[in-house]
């Protein structure tokens, strides 16, 4: 049961194509796990379809059609066979598979949960897959901009509400400390634009802005 579906305005950005790659990935993972949100997306895409029907057409000359017709017989560009992720990751939502090429490993930083930096083409956002052991937490932090989190397994509580598999949490400008609850390991995708600013006493010393800068 999804208690925290993707907010309407984020889904609208996704449906219109305005949402950048990283956040779109978090939404795509949520969509795989939430039938109701898929149905809401279908409504929005139906709106897109009607708006497409409604625009006054812009002429395309005959050469435009000819150029396309000559390309129809070309074999489709050999679509790279999607490399299957390693066995460890196969059970993760399919939207993540293209981002988990064979050989991907969890990286255990000195501080905080294990992570995988997802290789997005767009560098505007940082997309991380996090694995938080039961009782573990993401250090207290403040978001300067929106942070998009989708829970893939396990559950966490961020001091405001509880999130479990499929739930999506979109927050900005608040301090929160997500803590993994329950027995299961908590796996989630976290996407944000600006480096998080750690606000705890210890956190200030090791502000990841320093460590993340090279990735942005």
């Amino acid at each position, binding site marked *: 049961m999804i208690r925290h579906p993707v907010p309407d305005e984020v889904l609208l950005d996704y449906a219109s194509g305005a949402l950048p790659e990283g956040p779109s990935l978090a939404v795509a993972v949520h969509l795989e796990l939430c*039938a109701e949100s898929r149905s809401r997306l279908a409504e929005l895409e139906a709106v897109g379809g009607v708006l497409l029907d409604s625009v006054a057409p812009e002429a395309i000359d005959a050469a435009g059609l000819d150029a396309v017709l000559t390309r129809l017989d070309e074999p489709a560009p050999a679509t790279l066979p999607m490399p299957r992720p390693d066995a460890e990751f196969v059970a993760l939502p399919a939207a993540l598979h293209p981002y988990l090429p064979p050989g991907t490993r969890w990286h255990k930083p000195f501080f905080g949960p294990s992570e995988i930096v997802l290789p997005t*083409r767009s560098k505007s956002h940082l997309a991380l897959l996090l694995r938080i052991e039961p009782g573990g937490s993401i250090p207290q932090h403040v978001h300067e901009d929106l942070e998009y989190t989708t829970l893939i397994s396990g559950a966490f509580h961020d001091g405001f509400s509880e999130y479990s598999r499929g739930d999506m949490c979109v927050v900005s400008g608040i301090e929160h400390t997500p803590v993994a609850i329950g027995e299961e390991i908590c796996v989630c995708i976290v996407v944000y634009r600006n480096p998080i600013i750690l606000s705890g006493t210890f956190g200030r010393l090791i502000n990841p802005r320093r460590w993340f800068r090279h990735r942005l």
Partner: protein
Amino acid sequence: MVVAALPYGRPFSCREQDERTEHLLEGVAMAHARVQAAAHDVAFMAGRIAGTLSRTWRKIVNEPSDTASPTIASDSGGVGRVIAPVAGSSEAGSDGWACERLQAIGRNADKQAFAELFAWYAPRIKAFVMRGGASPDTAQEVAQEAMISVWRRAATFDPTIARPATWIYSIARNRRIDMVRRDRRSDAAIEDLKPLQEEVGQADTAIVALESGDRVREAIEQLAPEQLEVIRKAFFEDKSHSQIAVELGLPLGTVKSRIRHALLRLRARMQEDGR
């Protein structure tokens, strides 16, 4: 402006006051929005109940349903299947017309059908992309690439999941993401969603997605002007809700609540059963 650090009675600077007022106004707007949302919920539930009642009534008196969507029959698997495009609706641009052409392409690689579909949709995709600020050349390129994707993927078009215009819209959107925004949104990921669509909620998805274009168009036309504005900006101008807020000079909360109300209204209208 320098203000002495007094423990109390500190005068507000004008800017602070403005900020407070804005904050207060936003609070009022949000409260208003909540009341409106509640009213919408009630209207929505009433609509659903009315819909269920009218369906039940039709079952009792055994009247045929008068919806304009394609005929859906249940096969043994219980999954709705469209038997054939609506007969007699072969007017260019109609759902039945586009379905026939997509199926001709998917089954027989019919170039004539493709040329007809191209003549209808390519100029519209071009216009759509130009409204987002792209140059005519780029927009035409997006339209051409989108139509080539339509050709290659026609066999995967499933009329039980979406109207042709909806399907072509989503392909054109993804080509625009690739080519104009230089971002990535893999079609593969979307394809992978399909089998999942047959789980719970499938019935709802199918009903909404197959809603006749007229019904959706009417729903859009009935939006309040300020709601229509954000929806049009989002789709036509390729702007995120936060960019829309900046452009309209509105607090983010106001734009969010407009979007939420717009979608509530659209949903309520689209799901209303035969009027």
